[in-house]
């Protein structure tokens, strides 16, 4: 049982609760590895907010590129954020955009750990048998 506040103190809100849900099945060593990989790969919601704000100066959709949604990024870029409407919506919504991306990263990290590092993550098999 690892505590999220000890390993990833910078998280807040929904993300904090979600990562705690993942970490509660791990011991401290596993949680440490998870925290290192997750911290390196997650996107900060403040960066998403700033990139969204750039949409008002003609560079719309940069946040969509950063979040891996290339198609929407191109659409936003060539239509100045769907005539600003898309930019304004994403300005309201930037936290859930970052949250969604970070959840994907968390699941990726989990599957990386359970596939490639069986030595580090031995509890996986016993957990699934229960």
């Amino acid at each position, binding site marked *: 049982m690892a505590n999220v506040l000890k390993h990833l103190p910078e998280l807040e809100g*929904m993300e904090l*609760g*979600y990562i705690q*849900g*993942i970490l509660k099945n791990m011991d401290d060593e596993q949680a440490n590895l998870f925290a290192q990989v997750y911290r390196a790969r997650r996107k900060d919601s403040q960066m998403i907010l700033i990139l969204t704000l750039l949409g008002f100066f003609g560079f719309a959709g940069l946040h969509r590129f950063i979040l891996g*949604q290339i*198609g*929407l990024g*191109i*659409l936003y870029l*060539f*239509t*100045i*954020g*769907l*005539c*600003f*409407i898309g930019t*304004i*919506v994403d300005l*309201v*919504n930037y936290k*859930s*955009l970052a949250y*969604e991306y970070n*959840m*994907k990263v968390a*699941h990726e990290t989990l599957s990386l750990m359970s596939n490639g590092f069986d030595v580090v993550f031995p509890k996986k098999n016993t957990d699934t048998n229960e």
Partner: protein
Amino acid sequence: MKIPFELYFWCLALIAIAFIEVGTEAHFSLCPLHNLGANWCPGCGLGRSMKLFMTGEFKASWEMHPLGGFGLLVIGFRIIEIIKHIKTTRNYG
């Protein structure tokens, strides 16, 4: 279960676009630039273009705005992605 705001937005946008009547003069516009008095911006005609694409008039759609069909596809994929995301995050959280 909470339905994400973005899912509402894209679905409502597609429904609203499906009800656009192309060709009527002085159409109703949500665009903030248009309402401020600008005559043209790079996104002008995107909604009408999507509507034309939905009804199968691909050539007219391309002439209205080249990104109409592309945008429709991308938004469709995005809606599917959001629904998938709801399903995967239900386990923890």
